[in-house]
């Protein structure tokens, strides 16, 4: 709650005496009784209202009864003819926001004021009524509001327009009827009326692209009076540009001239808005960017902090996509590092980190060091992330950047901040080999005094993997073993695992590791003891049978090959039986968001009764369960991959069908998901007749029709094919939906006895090479690529012919191969002329494949591509090249 006003000093009592000293809610409510006096004293009443306002504005609340009492008393004040008091009354009623059943008391007074000859009564009555009224009363006053919008007094018009903006949230259908009046108000000569009208008109029409486009076209040619309205128009314009850009890729960008002309506007607000709009254009070219960057640069040295902030904030965004365009501003931004306003300084630093060149790194780091101590954690995180990307950009500078990170790691900070630093150090160690040893030592020092369990365990895990590969692994043991003495059970357990990894990798350390592990056998925690026992056995510390090196390494270092989520689901689905749980039965494909089975658009949601179940969940395990429950398919073995649903009908047709392709080692099953969208018919014996004459290697082995398909209740029918084992057979299939139609009596919902046979042509379906590749990502492509080795590497070059741009070419190849893009390389920076893309996947037969694609585009838009494949199997590497060559 608000702190009471404290009188500071007796000496300056005269000057400091507050009119609200010792103010108390109860007393003020008592005072409010003067509102009921037959002889109203306007001055006194105004004073009491001011006190009530003071209480409310300090966050004080009135109980329901108190508020009602005050409200009723205030309504009495409508009797007074004092203008000042009337103005206060309007405000007070709005502040009290009476509930619906009380509003009725004032509506007649307010309606009277709304029709008053005095303009100001009208304006204020509109605002109050719109604030406190509900939908039913609105329809009664709608006529007056429409008139008010086009009132010649701008205050009345603005009051009605702004009320409209608020009412639109609660009663949009009413406000939408005012379009004509609002349209007229947009042409008003009063600057603010135009501003408010423009905002309201846009909100009314925001879902009608054509209308917004027309509005923008007419206003950009006409005159917009206030800078505020001009800013709105710029925003709406960039929205129109954004939406139309996808239609016309070529040629001049519409409205760009308008945006550029706004850069020369006299109001700073408009200039900045226009510059911002230009920098945010899709695929903005450097020619388009230049004028905008130039004005932003000028604002960087403005005397007004708001302008500096706005300019640097915009440049910061530009630097993410077009760092080179911003380099001209580097000197101006460097001077902003010492800006008094920390927000501006942080933005300047993070922008500089993106745009700076290698030679300026050291100087920049020096400046940042001084600055870090006096900014908040959230700013620090931004800086750390920027430094991480800078270090990856200039690996030679790792020494000063790593030092900086280790220094700030020692300082005070919250979890998120420390985590950002640790993540950065880990990434640098992984990607810059020279930084490894010093980085690991920094991490070791950090865990000596780390209050965050999560971070300690992460670091210990990382040490276990990287530490044994260093020149002197023994120096890390001390830090790790200290954890066993000093930390909680979670960290101790991690430390035990880490020590075991050192023991497994470094033969010379093994005996000493055994000593340490044996000491852990007496730990107070079960998990710690269990791990110590397990590792001692595995490594042979108990004199027991030593596991082979390969097994041991696999056990200690092998990554869990299945995604954890999948493992969890499989374990939950596992029912205890004689057969033990098999980890190989866990699906390996990374699940994206479960795709909701698409329903035909425009279809009404099921109403009445219980809604029918929607289509089956398309997640892998749901498919697996579904297929294994069907006797005909149970002998097909393990499901390798299920495709995303492919639509075989157009949207809005009477029957909608999509198909999911399930790939097994020797079989392919098509699952047709059918929906009947006609309420008056019932379909029975639904089956798909597949013609596989264009898919020679496939032969149909089974078909499972659907007995009945009622309205809006999706069902599945299946067709299974056999194909040669180990061959990635491809082919085209044509499909016809066959069924018996029965009419349904709409009143009873019962189907007629007799039906008619009918059929329905569906689109063709293809099985393509990508169906045999699972999208499985790797976290660090470079490591995966190197550890795969060049034994089965196949490299070749291909011409992809003319393409619109590189993005199109990259997407085409990704779709052709059906592999998982890694490290965000599927995104091509706009206007770039070359690009590298990394893909990873698992080929049928569980063979890991990695692909490196290098693209280049020439002046004629011809795209050339170099394809390098590494895999665990020679034939698979060749197969990938075949797919590309024949695609």
């Amino acid at each position, binding site marked *: 709650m608000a*702190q009471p006003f404290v009188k500071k000093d007796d000496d300056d009592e005269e000057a400091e005496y507050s009119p609200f000293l010792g103010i108390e809610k109860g007393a003020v409510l008592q005072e409010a009784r003067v509102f009921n006096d037959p002889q109203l004293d306007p001055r006194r009443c105004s004073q009491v209202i001011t006190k009530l306002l*003071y209480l409310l504005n300090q966050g004080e609340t009135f109980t329901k009864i108190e508020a009602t009492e005050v409200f009723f008393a205030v309504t009495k004040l409508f009797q007074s003819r004092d*203008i000042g008091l009337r103005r206060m009354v309007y405000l007070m009623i709005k502040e009290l926001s009476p509930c619906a059943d009380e509003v009725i008391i004032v509506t007649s007074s307010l309606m009277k004021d709304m029709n008053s000859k005095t303009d100001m009564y009208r304006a204020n009555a509109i605002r109050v009524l719109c604030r406190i009224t509900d939908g039913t009363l609105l329809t009664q006053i709608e006529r007056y509001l429409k008139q008010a919008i086009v009132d010649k007094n701008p205050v009345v018009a603005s009051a009605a327009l702004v009320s409209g903006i608020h009412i639109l949230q609660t009663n949009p259908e009413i406000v939408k009827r005012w379009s004509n009046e609002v349209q007229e108000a947009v042409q008003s000569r009063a600057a603010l009326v135009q501003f408010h009208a423009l905002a309201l008109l846009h909100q009314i029409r925001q879902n009608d692209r054509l209308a917004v486009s027309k509005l923008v076209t007419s206003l950009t040619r006409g005159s917009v009076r206030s800078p505020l309205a001009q800013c709105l128009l710029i925003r709406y314009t960039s929205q129109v540009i954004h939406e139309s850009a996808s239609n016309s890729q070529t040629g001049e960008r519409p409205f760009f001239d308008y945006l550029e002309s706004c850069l020369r506007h006299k109001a700073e607000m408009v200039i900045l808005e226009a510059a911002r709009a230009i920098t945010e254009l899709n695929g903005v070219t450097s020619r388009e960017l230049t004028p905008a960057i130039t004005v932003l640069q000028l604002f960087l040295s403005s005397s007004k902090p708001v302008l500096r902030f706005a300019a640097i904030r915009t440049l910061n965004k530009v630097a993410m996509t077009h760092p080179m365009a911003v380099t001209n501003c580097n000197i101006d931004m460097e001077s902003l590092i010492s800006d008094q306003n920390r927000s501006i300084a942080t933005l300047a630093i993070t922008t500089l980190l993106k745009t700076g060149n290698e030679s300026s790194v050291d100087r920049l780091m020096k400046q940042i060091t001084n600055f870090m101590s006096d900014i908040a954690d959230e700013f620090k995180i931004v800086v750390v992330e920027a430094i991480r990307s800078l270090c990856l950009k200039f690996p030679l500078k790792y020494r000063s950047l790593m030092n900086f990170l280790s220094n700030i790691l020692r300082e005070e900070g919250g979890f998120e901040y420390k985590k950002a630093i640790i993540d950065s150090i880990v990434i640098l160690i992984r990607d810059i080999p020279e930084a490894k040893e010093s980085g690991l030592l920094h991490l070791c020092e950090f865990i000596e005094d780390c209050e965050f369990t999560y971070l300690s365990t992460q670091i210990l895990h990382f040490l276990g993997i990287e530490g044994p590969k260093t020149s002197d692994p023994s120096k890390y043991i001390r830090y790790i073993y200290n954890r066993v003495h000093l930390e909680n059970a979670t960290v101790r357990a991690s430390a035990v695992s880490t020590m075991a990894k050192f023991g497994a990798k470094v033969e010379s350390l093994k005996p000493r590791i055994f000593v340490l592990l044996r000491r852990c056998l007496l730990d107070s925690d079960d998990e710690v003891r269990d791990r110590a026992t397990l590792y001692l056995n595995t490594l042979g510390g108990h004199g027991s049978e030593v596991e082979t090196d390969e097994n041991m390494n696999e056990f200690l270092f092998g990554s869990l090959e299945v995604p954890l989520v999948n493992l969890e689901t499989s374990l939950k689905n596992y029912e205890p039986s004689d057969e033990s749980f098999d980890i190989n039965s866990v699906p390996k494909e990374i699940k994206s968001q479960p795709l909701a089975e698409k329903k035909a658009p425009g279809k009404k949601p099921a109403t009445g009764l219980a809604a029918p179940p929607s289509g089956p969940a398309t997640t892998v395990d749901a498919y697996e369960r579904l297929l294994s429950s069907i006797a005909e398919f149970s002998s097909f073995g393990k499901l390798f991959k299920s495709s995303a649903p492919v639509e075989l009908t157009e949207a809005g047709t009477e029957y909608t069908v999509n198909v999911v392709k399930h790939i097994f080692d020797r079989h392919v099953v098509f699952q047709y998901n059918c929906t009947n969208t006609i309420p008056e018919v019932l379909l029975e014996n639904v089956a798909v007749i597949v013609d596989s004459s264009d898919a020679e290697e496939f032969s149909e082995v089974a078909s499972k029709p659907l007995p009945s398909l009622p309205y809006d209740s999706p069902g599945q029918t299946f067709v299974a094919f056999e194909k040669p084992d180990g061959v990635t057979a491809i082919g085209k299939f044509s499909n016809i939906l066959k069924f018996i139609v029965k009419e349904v009596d709409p009143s009873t919902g019962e189907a007629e006895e007799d039906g008619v046979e009918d059929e329905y042509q569906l689109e063709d379906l293809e099985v393509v090479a990508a169906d045999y590749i699972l999208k499985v990502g790797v976290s660090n492509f470079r490591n995966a690529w190197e550890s795969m080795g060049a034994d089965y590497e196949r490299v070749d070059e291909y011409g992809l012919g003319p393409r619109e741009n590189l993005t199109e070419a990259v997407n085409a190849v990704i779709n052709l191969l059906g592999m998982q893009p890694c490290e965000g390389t599927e995104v091509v920076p706009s206007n770039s002329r070359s690009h590298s893309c990394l893909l990873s996947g698992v080929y049928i037969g569980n063979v890991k494949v990695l692909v490196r694609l290098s693209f280049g585009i020439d002046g004629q838009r011809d795209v050339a591509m170099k394809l390098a494949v590494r895999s665990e199997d020679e034939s698979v590497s060749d197969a990938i090249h075949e797919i590309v060559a024949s695609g």
Partner: protein
Amino acid sequence: MILAVLFANSEGNILVERFNGVPAEERLHWRSFLVKLGAENLRGAKNEELLVACHKSVYIVYTVLGDVSIYVVGKDEYDELALSEVIFVITSAVKDACGKPPTERLFLDKYGKICLCLDEIVWKGCLENTDKERIKRLIRLKPPVDF
């Protein structure tokens, strides 16, 4: 949307706070956040010198006027530029109502008038009036002169 307009005295006590579209449970947090922001940055600031900050997608423009610090918080269309317009109108209206950059006492003396000015300037999160001369007339229910 203009999420909040807040006035505080030099000790950080609240004089006026008006929130729009901010849930009741978050208001206390905002209040202390803004007062802290002012305490850290407004010391030594000149009258009407604007300071600016942003937190995620919310912008804050604030300043000091006499003994009173003023904070305006906005999001979406009310970014730092629009807010600087809003705070400019507020400071000029307050100066006008008080006749000069106010002491705390003067501010409280003119409290009713200032509330009326705010009512004319910000209407449930929208900027309504921007001209101090007009506001001066509107709070006395006088029509604007310029139409």
